[in-house]
């Protein structure tokens, strides 16, 4: 059953969630990120610059703390975890879909207690794209996504002007309706058709398509190709495309020791940084930017697929919008397909000639 909630009821809903940790999009000087909220969420936005993966997988996180005892470190203690249930407002469906990839990753060969704990406590409220989204770099529909997709979503909200149309996708979503009580009212059929229209318009607003049918196959035969040199020539080696990616999940672990106390901390890392792959010996197996760009593509479209059965892209378009030199993930992968065909033809001709 679907419901609606008036935009004027958001303060009351926030009040009703007083026993919850509430997260949502927050704007500071025009930049949107997801933060813990101390008032009702503002959902009039496009999408955040930094994806909401930060709610479950913070950019910097203390894993445990310890003390120094002479030459030894002792007393490793995990920081106390919050036990409150958690609600995240205003997640775009592409970013919610990315949560399901992170779920697989963080429970794949080892259960990551930090991430899993937060995910289990959380109810994800997604927001159908409308207004500023989808924008010119969105392409979720080309990778089995949708601007009103429900993968990784507990409750899907659609903006109907003065109210949101609310669809409960999971039991957690239903529990939210129960908790909100009379703030939510049963939807009428007009609401349903209006929501349908918003959803259809969102799909129509997507202008970019991405044919990834042959991407994996093409990448397999391009490992040593000069192609990577060509596409990475203008790369400046910053980590924006990966740090802002909702599916990228690499992290670095460091001990931060100050006098008698210390903490072990993990921080987002990026395969685009030269030092990412540097060994303790000083040897770096991925010293050139062509190798790092290649790794990004291989990881997204081959390695994650092999390991988890999904690809590492949800079509949010952040890497395209943010890249300082306009490297475009669709152009790069589609270019790889064209290049693989070309190189195959050249090989075949070479063999004929021989």
């Amino acid at each position, binding site marked *: 059953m679907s419901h609606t909630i008036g935009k004027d009821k958001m303060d009351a809903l926030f009040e009703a969630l007083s026993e919850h940790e509430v997260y949502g999009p927050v704007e500071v000087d*025009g930049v949107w990120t997801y933060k813990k909220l101390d008032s009702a969420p503002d959902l009039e936005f496009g999408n955040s610059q930094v994806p909401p993966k930060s709610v479950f997988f913070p950019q*910097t996180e203390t894993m445990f703390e310890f003390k120094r005892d002479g030459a030894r470190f002792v007393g490793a203690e995990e920081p106390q975890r919050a036990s409150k249930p958690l609600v995240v407002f205003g997640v775009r469906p592409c970013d919610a879909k990315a949560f399901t990839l992170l779920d697989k990753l963080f429970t794949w060969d080892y259960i990551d207690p930090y991430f899993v704990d937060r995910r289990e406590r959380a109810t994800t409220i997604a927001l159908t794209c409308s207004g500023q989204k989808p924008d010119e770099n969105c392409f979720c529909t080309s990778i089995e996504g949708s601007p009103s997709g429900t993968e990784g979503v507990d409750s899907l909200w659609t903006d109907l002007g003065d109210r949101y149309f609310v669809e409960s996708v999971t039991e957690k979503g239903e529990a939210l309706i129960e908790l909100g009580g009379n703030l939510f009212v049963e939807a009428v059929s007009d609401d349903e058709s209006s929501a349908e229209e918003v959803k259809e318009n969102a799909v129509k607003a997507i202008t970019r398509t991405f044919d990834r049918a042959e991407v994996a196959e093409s990448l397999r035969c391009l490992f040593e190709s000069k192609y990577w040199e060509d596409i990475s020539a*203008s790369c400046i080696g*910053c980590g924006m495309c990966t*740090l802002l990616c909702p599916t990228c999940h690499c992290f670095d672990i*460091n001990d931060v020791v100050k006098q008698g106390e210390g903490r072990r901390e993990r921080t987002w890392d990026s395969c685009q940084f030269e030092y990412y792959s540097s060994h303790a010996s000083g040897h770096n197996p991925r010293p050139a930017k062509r190798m790092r760009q290649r790794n990004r593509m291989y990881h997204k479209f081959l390695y994650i697929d092999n390991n988890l059965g999904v690809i590492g892209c949800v079509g949010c378009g952040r890497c395209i919008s943010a890249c*300082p*030199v*306009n490297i475009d993930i669709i152009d790069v992968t589609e270019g790889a397909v064209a290049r693989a065909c070309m190189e195959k033809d050249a090989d075949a001709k070479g063999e004929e000639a021989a």
Partner: protein
Amino acid sequence: MTDRQGQIQDTARGWLESGEVKYVVGFEQGRRAGTKVAFVRRPEDADKLVWNSMCVNNLTLFLVEEMQTRPGRGEELDTTPIGIVVKPCDSKTIVELMKENIVARERVKIIGVTCEGVCDTKKVDGSEKQPPAVTDENIAGKCLVCTHHNPLIADVVCGEAVPETITDDYSDVAELEAMTPQERWEYWERQLERCVRCYGCREACPLCYCEECVFDREKPYRWNEKSVQLPENTFYHLVRAMHLAGRCVDCGECERVCPVDIPIRKINRYLEWKAKERYDVEAGVDPEDDSMFGTCDTADPEDFIW
């Protein structure tokens, strides 16, 4: 604009035909209104070079990359010059890089383009199909205070000379100076708190050319924690700023590339202002100038040390 574009193409084509340069770094049309960095290696490809309001990148970054490329084992260093397309602000970078012995003049042939200003790409609608005309609304912030509309160093200058009409009074950073230390600290806390440490500002800066940055060093010890938190973020930006004092030419790349819109130019412009005021130093103007930190004068004012 188109006139300049034709001159750029002709020059690049000529140099590539005669073999004077091994390749030319310039701009080509990107998707929709944006541009991409072009590496033109054959004379017949010179036609793809463009010149328009969206040619924002400072391409001298790739000149530094060329200068820092070492030959592979058994190979000889190819010192054939490269060609590069620069705006006047970018040309100042080359001057500065020459001062610091990073760029050898004989290894670069410069196509300087006179410039009336470029767009702030963040103010241009992403769905725009054609490069828009530069207007008061979309002009890049650096262009509003630009005092060099003509290249300071070039082998060929494309476009008519542009008269200089702007005097920079640094009023934008004077506003910051007028704040109380507490207000100023709060302002910067608010800005630096959201840094994601992608190091885009460092990577986009042609003057951040250290082959091993202090923030990547682990030995003998780590100067700055990897933690993406206010103290570490602040330390990173402060150290980077100090390393650019008296060197930054305000090409604006750091601020342009920042994915979370930190007003990095404000830091650098403050330093630029003070370098000018106190030591009469202007970066990127004359390759024969001494570097600010490389010279000592007992008459230098010391009133800021307390």
